């Protein structure tokens, strides 16, 4: 059975992910009543993918909010509020949100820890498939809700046909606790159960398949990875190109070659695996490739050795 490589500090990251999941959904008593929270805090978006129909949810899903505000009262409208939230989160944290603040990312991380007959780091077509998430963002989250919705009802196409987070955190607890809702389950419900089942199965084989190929939120935040305020930094003068970072990357990228990649979820596994401390989180994406400084360091080390 294949297992995921362990990296020091993973437990702490998972503890943060668990705390964030609980913070997004702290009205736990709603899971028993099969109802959802009605609080005013739900006008504020949380950074991660967390369905606002989860019984415990205290905030709104930013992707759900975006889809529901691109059209209003039968007319196309500019989604100032949801887009502003997405830009703000992306500008400050980039895809660090995927690594630390997304409940569905946490679920996939836990699933990948389960030993399975094989663990795939990459495969033929992996790079090409990653473009799907941009199509999901553009088509299912913006253009289809904008142009294919009815006169009065805006259809959130991504939530309706794809989102596995809505099924896991919303549909399953609600239908288990609320027989009236369970009685309405039809073809769409079972379609979404099938989507969730496929993603769960893939998560045993590939690390973060939903984040890699389908997540529109990750696609959006990834666009900010190069300019996000909190970012990954690489020190060329400390790096020995040993490949320890690449070997543990859950997204199958080489952090040394492209530390500001749109695919990097800033989980910091690379930084923790690096024996020389060449990668770390800091303010602004940066490659400390000061050749003069690196050469000076080498000369200094040479003099000391003499």
């Amino acid at each position, binding site marked *: 059975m294949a297992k995921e490589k362990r990296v020091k500090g993973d437990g702490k990251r998972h503890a943060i992910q668990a705390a964030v999941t609980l913070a997004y959904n702290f009205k736990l008593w709603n899971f028993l009543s099969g109802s*959802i929270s009605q609080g005013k805090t739900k006008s504020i978006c949380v950074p991660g993918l967390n369905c606002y129909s989860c019984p415990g949810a205290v905030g709104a899903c930013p992707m759900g909010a975006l889809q*529901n505000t691109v059209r209003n009262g039968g007319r196309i409208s500019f989604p100032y509020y949801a887009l502003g939230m997405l830009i703000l989160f992306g500008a400050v944290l980039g895809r660090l949100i995927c690594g630390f603040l997304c409940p569905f990312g946490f679920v996939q991380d836990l699933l990948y820890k389960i030993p399975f007959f094989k663990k795939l780091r990459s495969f033929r077509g992996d790079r090409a498939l990653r473009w799907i998430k941009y199509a999901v963002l553009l088509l299912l989250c913006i253009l289809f809700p904008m142009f294919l919705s009815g006169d009065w009802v805006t259809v959130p196409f991504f939530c309706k046909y794809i989102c596995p987070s809505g099924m896991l955190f919303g549909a399953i607890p609600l239908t288990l606790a609320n027989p009236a809702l369970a009685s309405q389950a039809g073809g769409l419900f079972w379609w979404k159960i099938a989507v969730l089942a496929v993603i769960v199965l893939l998560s045993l084989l590939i690390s973060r398949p939903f984040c890699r190929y389908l997540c529109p939120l990750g696609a959006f935040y990834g666009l900010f990875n190069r300019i996000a305020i909190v970012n990954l930094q690489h020190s060329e003068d400390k790096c020995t190109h040993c490949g320890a970072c690449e070997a543990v990357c859950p997204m199958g990228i080489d952090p040394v070659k492209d530390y500001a990649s749109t695919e990097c979820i800033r989980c910091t596994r690379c930084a923790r695996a690096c024996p020389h401390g060449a990668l770390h989180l800091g303010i602004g994406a940066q490659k400390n490739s000061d050749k003069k400084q690196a050469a000076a360091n080498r000369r200094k080390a040479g003099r000391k050795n003499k």
Partner: protein
Amino acid sequence: MKRAYFGIAAGVIGLVLIAYGVLSGQAGLVLQKAIRVCLECVGLG
């Protein structure tokens, strides 16, 4: 560090959009959607 300034500028744009969205009632629209069970989200709509 230079790139962080682009991040700060983007963050400010985000804040301006949020403020305009709140003033134009979009926060209320998000709340209205979020406090009702989203039947599409849970595969019942």
